[in-house]
């Protein structure tokens, strides 16, 4: 098996450390990401998800425990995290609030220009990033950012990170506040990015249906610790535990549970709409099974 590109072991982090207002955000969290993987991180508000992912490109440094990213030991204060920020792109919650250039093209080009790339390369990257998020280059490059819809602004912000061509893309609640079509398009863009460029994705979300649809492996955080970890099917099988943790299961999984409790034999790992349709159809055509 390939070596992890992000490896977090027993990570502790405090806010306002050594002050009277000190509060602990992470209490021994762990995490692993291998090249090309798509991993979900779930947890209720305040479980430590955002604090954890802010360690992935050295925005936060471990107070205790270890964080290794592409071989760099971020617990070592002498290690400069800046080179990692090209390789690990972090998209924050509501990233559209961080757009600042008046036009779409300039906003997306900001990062590549800062890298000192040549004009032609900047242009290539902006075009590539806009294509990846489904914004036609010619129609959007000169549009004013403030005249865009929420979904379009979200995609511009994402394109700005993609233009750095990171090997790992970490997204914190990327679909919150988007309309259904905006969500669908964003998820499709992420899937294409993974399938076509092999970009590894870390998807932080409390939308169970989206997690089930996009990721292969899930970690669940609670109280700053990793409490469940496994394939998406293994984790969503723990529906009682997930509810205790303030989470839930995808609608299709809940429906399958409701049917099983009515005596319908259905397989244990119904996660997506496709799964539910197949399982219910199979069961309806052979009711004696």
């Amino acid at each position, binding site marked *: 098996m390939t070596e992890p590109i992000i490896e977090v072991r027993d990570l502790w982090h405090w806010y306002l450390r050594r002050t009277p207002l000190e509060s602990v955000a992470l209490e021994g969290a762990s995490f692993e990401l291998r090249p090309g993987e798509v991993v979900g991180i779930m*947890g*209720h*508000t*305040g479980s430590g998800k955002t604090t954890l992912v802010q360690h992935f490109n050295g925005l936060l440094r471990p107070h205790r425990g270890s964080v290794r990213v592409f071989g760099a030991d971020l617990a070592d204060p002498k290690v400069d995290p800046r080179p990692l920020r090209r390789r690990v792109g972090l998209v924050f919650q509501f990233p559209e609030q961080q757009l600042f250039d008046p036009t779409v093209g300039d906003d997306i080009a900001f990062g590549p220009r800062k890298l000192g790339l040549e004009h032609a390369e900047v242009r290539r990257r902006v075009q590539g990033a806009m294509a990846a998020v489904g914004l036609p280059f010619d129609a959007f490059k000169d549009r*004013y950012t*403030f*005249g865009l*819809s*929420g*979904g*379009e602004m979200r995609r511009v912000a994402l394109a700005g990170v993609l233009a750095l061509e990171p090997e790992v893309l970490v997204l914190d*609640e990327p679909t*919150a*506040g*988007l*309309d*259904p*079509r*905006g*969500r*669908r398009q964003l998820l499709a863009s992420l899937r294409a990015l993974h399938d076509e460029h092999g970009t590894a994705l870390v998807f932080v979300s*409390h939308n*169970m*249906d989206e997690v089930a649809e996009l990721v292969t492996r899930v970690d669940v955080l609670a109280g700053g610790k990793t409490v469940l970890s496994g394939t998406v099917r293994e984790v969503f099988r723990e529906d009682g535990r997930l509810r205790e943790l*303030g*989470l*839930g299961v*995808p*609608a*299709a999984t*809940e*429906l399958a549970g*409701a*049917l099983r409790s*009515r005596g*319908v034999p259905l397989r244990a790992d119904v996660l997506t*709409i496709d799964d*539910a*349709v197949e399982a*219910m*159809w199979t*069961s*309806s055509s052979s*009711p004696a099974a």
Partner: protein
Amino acid sequence: MSAAGEPLVRVDGVSVAYPVPGGRVQALSDVSMEVRRGEWLTIIGHNGSGKSTLAKLFNGLVLPGRGEVTVNGLNTRDDEQRKRIRQVVGMVFQDPDNQLVATIVEEDVAFGPENLGLPRAEIVTRVADALRRLEIEDLRQRAPHQLSGGQKQRVAIAGVLAMKPAMLVLDESTAMLDPSGRADVLRAARALHRDGVTIVAITHFMNEVALADRVIVLSEGRVAMEADPRALFAQPDRLRELELDVPEVTEIASRLRDRGLDLPIVPLTIGELADAYMQARR
């Protein structure tokens, strides 16, 4: 129409445009609609369709460029009436982190009634009542920053409720919450609705739409559809044209129907679909 049937809010031929550098963005175009007393009205629409602008018309946070908005017969353009209108129509917004003003929960809930200049005993009664109805009595001495998102939103709703509004507008108030926070806020809203508070909910979660008596769909600043949830979700193609979707259960039912399974209704909840499936399977 009888007096009892008179709508609580009437929006009549309203257009709203916002100035932007180099021009104007038309947020609403000739919208007419009403909010009926005691109903749960849900407003959906794509990002930028005008939902939030429409909601902000209801208490005069946004004034119409053209047309009129009246609340209990009071015109929102009338500066003299605006304070009374805001007592009738309370609003809770999306972000739980920028709606609380005080350092202690019960002071936050008391903030509105204090500004009305009510007697101390009345304020105390209203605060206690609001905390009880939102099931957050145990949080009364806590600092807002110690609360979860769902708790903060319930404190915000309690603050509105202490003003004894006839109507509560939830403008994407569940968008930033985790599943248990969302469930808590929706349970609180359902309880207020049962007590007679008119609810206007704006949401992108199609499975929350099932709670409504009536749904209005906005698109490009106009009313594109109006229906009850079941009739609405019976038109998935039209909804997709409007950049929306149907809830997962409705989608599953429709795909099974396409394959020939006899599922007669548009299910809105998991329980409904499960029951219909048991019938169809026999």
